[in-house]
């Protein structure tokens, strides 16, 4: 086995009664990767995270954490994982310091490394001055940070974060995101979210899960390629003649969207921007704007998740719906 592989999931299934929440999931996480786990609500993200962290047992399949089977040797495997559930598991009666020390003890850190680990993880999560505060008095953003601090206190190989930025204000979101990028340098990070820009700004690899199945698994560059434009926005001073533009090589269709604005669709890899600009100038329409339109991650997401529905669901899925 490649020793860079931190998490290896094979043929993972999870049923709740006869509802299949996760089916036939296969993926790997390598060192230094931030894996974005995307999916609509109820897609099976949280279930997968819970299984990976040992909170739930899978119905079938194998999970290797750092090469250790989590079912055979749960203690050893769990020692390599830091997990932040959707709801941070905080004892609100404790102060931040007390709580983090307890977490360090639970993760079997030796007594002499306890304080160093606590201070280090506090520093990384921006909790330096919060040590003596009661967790119940902290704001949601700070609680989230304590949750992350708890997950990284034993510097695990794999950090699993389940929707870490939910309910935070934009500044806190930015801070948490930069923290995640920071973490991704030394740990393998699995990040579950349904916020698409978050994935674009943070992750190095993206997986989209829908109805318990993996429908997309690619690197961010692969995703960007898929997002490449297949349309141009054209704005002119005068109303351009649609027929002229449609006749240009590579152009598939033209639609009028504003008063003087056109959307020009073209075949992928055959961008007519240059000839289009020349044509507009030649005719003296007065070129104001010519921009390539990017397919948004949303679009890909919607494409993938709706395409799956038309391909015919299995009987189990039908019951689930």
């Amino acid at each position: 086995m490649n020793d860079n592989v931190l998490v290896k999931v094979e043929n993972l299934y999870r049923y709740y009664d006869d509802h299949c929440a996760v089916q036939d999931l296969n993926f790997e996480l390598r060192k230094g990767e931030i894996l974005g786990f995307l999916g609509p609500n109820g897609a099976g993200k949280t279930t997968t995270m819970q299984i990976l962290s040992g909170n739930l047992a899978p119905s079938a399949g194998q999970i290797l954490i750092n090469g250790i089977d989590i079912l055979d040797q749960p203690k050893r495997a769990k020692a390599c994982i830091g997990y932040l559930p959707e709801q941070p598991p905080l004892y609100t009666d404790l102060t931040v310091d007390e709580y983090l020390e307890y977490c360090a003890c639970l993760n079997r850190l030796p007594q002499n490394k306890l304080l160093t680990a606590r201070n280090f993880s506090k520093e990384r999560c921006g909790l330096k001055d919060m040590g003596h505060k009661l967790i119940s008095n902290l704001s949601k953003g700070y609680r989230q940070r304590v949750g992350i601090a708890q997950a990284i206190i034993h510097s695990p190989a794999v950090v699993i974060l389940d929707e870490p930025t939910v309910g935070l204000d934009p500044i806190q979101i930015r801070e948490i995101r930069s923290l995640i990028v920071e973490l991704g340098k030394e740990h393998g990070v699995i990040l579950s979210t349904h916020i698409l820009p978050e994935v674009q700004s943070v992750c190095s690899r993206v997986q989209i899960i829908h109805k318990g199945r993996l429908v997309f698994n690619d690197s961010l560059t692969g995703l960007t390629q898929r997002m490449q434009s297949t349309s141009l926005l054209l704005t002119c001073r005068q109303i351009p003649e649609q027929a002229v533009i449609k006749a240009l090589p590579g152009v598939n269709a033209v639609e009028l969207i504003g008063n003087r604005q056109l959307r020009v669709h073209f075949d992928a890899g055959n961008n007519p921007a240059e000839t289009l600009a020349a044509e507009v100038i030649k005719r003296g329409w007065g070129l104001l704007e010519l921009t390539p339109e990017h397919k948004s991650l949303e679009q890909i997401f919607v494409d993938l998740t709706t395409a799956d529905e038309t391909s015919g669901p299995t009987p189990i899925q039908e019951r689930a719906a």
Partner: protein
Amino acid sequence: MMIFTIAWRELRNLFLSPLAWCVLAVIQFIIAWIFLVQVDNFLKFAPTLANMANAPGVTDAIASPIFSTASVVMLLVVPIMSMRLIAEERRSGTLSLLLSAPVSMTEIVLGKYLGLLLFLFIMLGFMALMPLSLAIGTHLDYGKLFSDVLGLGLLLGAFASAGLFFSTLTKQPVVAAVASFGLLLMLWIISWAGSGDERYSPVFHYLSMLDHYGSLLRGSFNTTDVLYYLLFIITFLVLSIRRLDAYRLQH
């Protein structure tokens, strides 16, 4: 040892809430009241008792009634203290901290149990101090006193294990409290049934917690009684571990 880490945290968490202090104070007050009444009664009847041939001593007259009342009070108190052990953690989502940490289910259950037991033993210690304080002025039957303390200790251990088990069954602490109180009370009074029936009454008497406690209070140390409590505790601890394990398998 992970068990002690969890137990220590559990105990400290108990004392962070006003509940533990409140329970300690109320119980101490009630037991102290009974202690005073018993001492008063004993002084009143001391001259009569002195003339009797086989009169009960100070320990019999004062310690035993205290411990027998304490057991009934604890029947009410332990379910309240034990109800939150797992149920609260499941409700607030903090259980996943323990489940994703490198600790086994056995360690979690034993840690929680031990934490609560330590608290109950602190309470027991304070109770035992009252009859012990009589040693300043009179001679005590330490063997009997020890038997009383041991009996209540075992009883508390049994109460706590049943409470812990019911706490693993539900997310609602109050439901856990009511269920464990129901079971404990049932086992307390079970010997009332079948008292006339020759065939079944030994079974009911064996199941009754009161009967086993009673013989320890009288100062007779029977292996059967001690084994009864140990079996009771082990059974419910094993059930709790199994239950917590099953929680991972299905929702």
